[in-house]
């Protein structure tokens, strides 16, 4: 068997050691470092990415919570604002109604008074104008205006009448 032929043992050992040394050297110097580096880089990248993702997720969750609280707060505020506004408007409405009622009452009162005053004035005007008119008509009916003698006579007759009234 050639396996046990010691004839070429030494050369085989020599070449084996030499070639293994060369392979070892090449791999040690040129092949392993870039591969190991790549592996490490990838591992680091993956870990970093995972970390980052975890961080992002945590941040997102926190933000979501924040927003939810904010939203709730906002909803509450809006509700309170609504109630307040409703109350205010109700109050304003009530006030306005009262004021309007008071105003209308006052205006009505004043109008009534004005009407009463005007009516009275008109009545008085009518009275005086009627008297004037009566005198004018009497004058027209009697004809010309009375002469002095007539005046005197009327006066005397009136006096007599008064005297007669006073006597009786």
């Amino acid at each position: 068997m050639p396996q046990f032929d010691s004839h070429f043992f030494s050369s085989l050992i020599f070449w084996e050691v030499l070639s293994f040394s060369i392979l070892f050297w090449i791999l040690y110097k040129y092949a392993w470092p870039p591969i190991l580096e790549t592996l490490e880089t990838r591992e680091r990248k993956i870990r970093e990415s995972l970390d980052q993702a975890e961080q992002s997720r945590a941040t997102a969750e926190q933000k979501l919570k924040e927003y939810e609280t904010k939203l709730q707060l906002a909803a509450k505020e809006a509700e309170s604002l609504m109630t307040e506004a409703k109350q205010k408007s109700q109050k304003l409405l009530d006030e306005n109604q009262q004021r309007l009622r008071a105003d209308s009452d006052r205006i009505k009162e004043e109008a009534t008074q004005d009407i009463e005053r005007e009516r009275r004035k008109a009545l008085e005007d009518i009275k005086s104008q009627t008297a004037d008119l009566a005198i004018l008509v009497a004058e027209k009916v009697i004809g010309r205006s009375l002469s002095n003698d007539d005046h005197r006579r009327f006066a005397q007759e009136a006096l007599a009448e008064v005297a007669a009234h006073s006597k009786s």
Partner: protein
Amino acid sequence: MWIVVGVASLFLLKAGAAKSLVPSKLQSLAELLVEFIQGIIQDTMGASGMRYFPLIGALFLFILFCNLLGLIPGSYTVTSQIVATGVFAIGVYALSLVIGFQLHGAKFLGILVPPGTPGWLLPLMIPIELISQIARPISLAVRLFANMTAGHVILGVLFGLTIAGGLLIGWLPFSFTIVLYGLEVGIAFIQAYIFTVLTCVYIGDAIHLH
């Protein structure tokens, strides 16, 4: 052997040159290989064994490519030479001894005494352990050599039968060779793996000392 060195270095150099974060097929293969070897080291030696990664990796690749290239008809399998495997085995074993004495000094001789051995058993235990230690490189060398040689012998016999049988019966041993070739590829991987694992175990023993 030059072919082995050339192919192995070319493969890893080309794979390592890419350096891209999303690996190509070749790069993935090389990285798979590297991680596989790292896994072996991690399992047997722990994290402190990573220092020896370049050596173990080169050893694994050298043996693997020797085994695989030997399967190409017409080529020669270096690892089917007892001298070749012997050199590796003795070299590895010597390395483990050197590392052991370097790390632990004279205490490294304690590797001959299993922990918990009572004093009166020492005269018996030390020779036994000594034999087991000496058996290590021998078994390492013989295992690889025998596996490789046996595979080739069987293949040779079957091919001989094929030729001798002629067309009439020759197809039977020939079909066996096809099956055996598949088996041989597996054995090539497995033997390289075993050799590497045992190397790691021996060096790991030297580092950790029980």
